[in-house]
């Protein structure tokens, strides 16, 4: 019996996974569902066990599975299969990466070996020593703001309370980002382990995962992983026979981009409209139900087990300056080879787009890249040699955000994209503050008017002033950062507004 590992990630589902799975069963393959390796253009990806190796084929179609079965016994005939890729570990998109957060994704079935080895190894340590190690590592929040993680952890741990919470922000709404989804679908155990470690370090006994409703497969996968964890005493009462108990449940959002903002998320999690709260108090002091709450993005929490295994000092060796460790970049949009690219900070945008991505998918010349989601800056070719670190990006008025890079070819119209930036803010504004609620509408109208305005200079000036008001007077980053894509477009692509 030949064993095949079939990606059942959303990438694979969207490209015909179900038919391929049926074909695998029909030809008598022993198939194992695994997460994605992150080579999105090769999905559905199938890996065939051949001796000690796994040989990959993709994108595999259902009618190509029979030929795979016939070729399965000989290395020579395998190579002649039209979808032959070879070993993923040898693929140049994969072998130049540093996989820490994604070290397990795509390797084995979820929960095949349910062990929280890192948690187990750290349960006899002083919680404060754990937080010290986090500080040494220099880990910063991967959700977008890049705030040093250890400060949040220490604040939660040191705030006197009868109950503390760990809340995982899995409301990954930024366009061009999918690392949270891939991790939750492919390796949810690492997220649960990271949450449990955070719970131990901060003195919290309860965790929530706030998941966006657009991710039904991640929902299923998380619930499956939680149930496996409880069965194996990795969650629940007295974990590994220690005094530490930790519970996790998934909360399903209901379609609201703003709930990715941490205070909106907490409002929603308490069962209200997801309108933002004025800070202070910070959630780390008074968060969920006014209790100290550690709110972190999926990738931040899932980074913790591999970080501790490596050791804080070794982790800090990766990356550049204050941007330490690795970050899973997500290459998307009009690019030939898109997908997940986990790298230490410090590579340039051009390396990602050209060397990993292989240029545009359409074959037309590159024109712009948007970094860090809908609230991120548009870059032109002139900025592509900027290094991907928090500091370098800030230097050009951009941000890494959640690590998404969306590539556009020459057909993009930056006036249209700026109109969309305002429109998206209009659709998703929580409505609490005026600059965001009204400013977004006025911005969209101005951008529409610019199509055939008789006084473009005055209108552009007005847009700039509106951007100033939104940036300085909005209560949260939704209204405060919507000017970033607009200003960057105006500055770098002025011809599109003429």
């Amino acid at each position, binding site marked *: 019996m030949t064993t095949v590992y079939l990606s059942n990630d959303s990438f694979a*589902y*969207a490209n015909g996974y179900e038919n391929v799975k049926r074909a695998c069963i029909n030809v008598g393959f022993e198939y194992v569902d695994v997460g994605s390796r992150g080579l999105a253009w090769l999905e559905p990806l199938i890996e065939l066990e051949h001796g000690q190796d796994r040989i990959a084929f993709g994108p595999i179609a259902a009618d190509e599975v029979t030929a795979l079965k016939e070729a399965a016994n000989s290395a020579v005939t395998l190579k002649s299969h039209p979808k032959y890729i070879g070993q993923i570990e040898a693929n140049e998109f994969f072998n130049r990466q540093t996989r820490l957060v994604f070290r397990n994704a795509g390797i084995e079935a979820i929960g095949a070996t349910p062990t929280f080895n890192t948690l187990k190894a750290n349960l006899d340590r002083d919680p404060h020593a754990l937080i010290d190690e986090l500080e040494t590592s220099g880990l910063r929040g991967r959700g977008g703001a890049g705030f040093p993680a250890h400060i949040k952890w220490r604040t939660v741990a040191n705030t006197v309370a009868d109950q503390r919470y760990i809340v995982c922000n899995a409301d990954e709404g930024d366009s061009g980002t999918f690392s949270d989804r891939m991790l939750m679908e492919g390796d949810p155990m690492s997220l649960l382990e990271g949450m449990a470690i955070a719970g131990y370090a901060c003195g919290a006994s309860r965790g929530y995962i706030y998941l966006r409703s*657009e991710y039904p497969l991640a929902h299923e996968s998380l619930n499956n992983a939680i149930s496996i964890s409880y069965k194996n005493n990795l969650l629940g009462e007295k974990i590994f026979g220690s005094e530490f108990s930790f519970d996790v449940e998934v909360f399903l959002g209901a379609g609201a981009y703003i709930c990715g903002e941490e205070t909106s998320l907490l409002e929603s999690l308490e069962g209200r409209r997801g309108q933002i709260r004025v800070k202070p108090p910070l959630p780390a002091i008074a968060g969920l139900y006014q209790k100290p709450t550690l709110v972190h993005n999926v990738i931040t929490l899932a980074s913790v087990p591999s970080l501790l295994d490596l050791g804080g000092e070794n982790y800090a060796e990766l990356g550049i300056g204050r941007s330490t460790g690795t970050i899973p970049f997500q290459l998307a*949009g009009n*690019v030939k080879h898109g997908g997940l690219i986990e790298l230490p900070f410090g590579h340039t945008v051009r390396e990602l787009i050209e060397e990993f991505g292989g240029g545009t998918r359409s074959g037309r010349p590159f024109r712009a890249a948007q970094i860090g989601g809908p609230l991120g800056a548009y870059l032109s070719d002139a900025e592509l040699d900027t290094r991907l670190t928090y500091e370098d990006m800030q230097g050009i008025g951009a941000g890494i955000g959640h690590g998404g890079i969306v590539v556009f*070819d020459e057909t993009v119209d930056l006036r249209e994209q700026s109109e*969309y930036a305002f429109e998206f803010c209009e659709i998703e504004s*929580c409505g609490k503050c005026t600059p965001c609620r009204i400013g977004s509408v006025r911005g969209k109208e101005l951008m529409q008017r610019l199509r055939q305005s008789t006084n473009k200079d005055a209108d552009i000036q007005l847009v700039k002033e509106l951007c100033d008001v939104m940036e300085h007077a909005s209560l949260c980053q939704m209204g405060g950062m919507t000017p970033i894509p607009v200003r960057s477009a105006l500055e770098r692509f002025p011809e599109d507004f003429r």
Partner: protein
Amino acid sequence: MSETELRELIKPCLKLAGGIIHACHAVMDSIGYIDRDSKRIIADVFNLSIAEVSGIVSFYHDFKTEPQPPKQLRICMAEACQANQARKLVAAIEQNLHTKIPCHTANGETAIGFTYCLGICPNGPAVTIDGKLLANASATEVLANL
């Protein structure tokens, strides 16, 4: 669904964090929309006013207050899909159906709307048809599924 059944359906949500959102999901899943009667019952179970429940229901895009067509087509309009010509896809569908999206098809069978990021951003344009993801969607393929 009778009032008693609806009450039984949502009562377990009382014990959960953000229980009212769970309750709204449960009503959407079993009835398909949240009308005034359902809001009244949710309000009663959670000891809130109908106005408060209406405020919650109207905030979230997933919650609908009117009956929905049996089929749902959602087209991703976020930047990564735009980079892969989602705007052209929308224009082609609109031209074929002689309508503007969001809309219902003439036979009332399908609701067509927009969504913002389905998480398969290198494989755009992305759509979902009754919740099922489709990558690299073409107008022909989408229209054939309506």
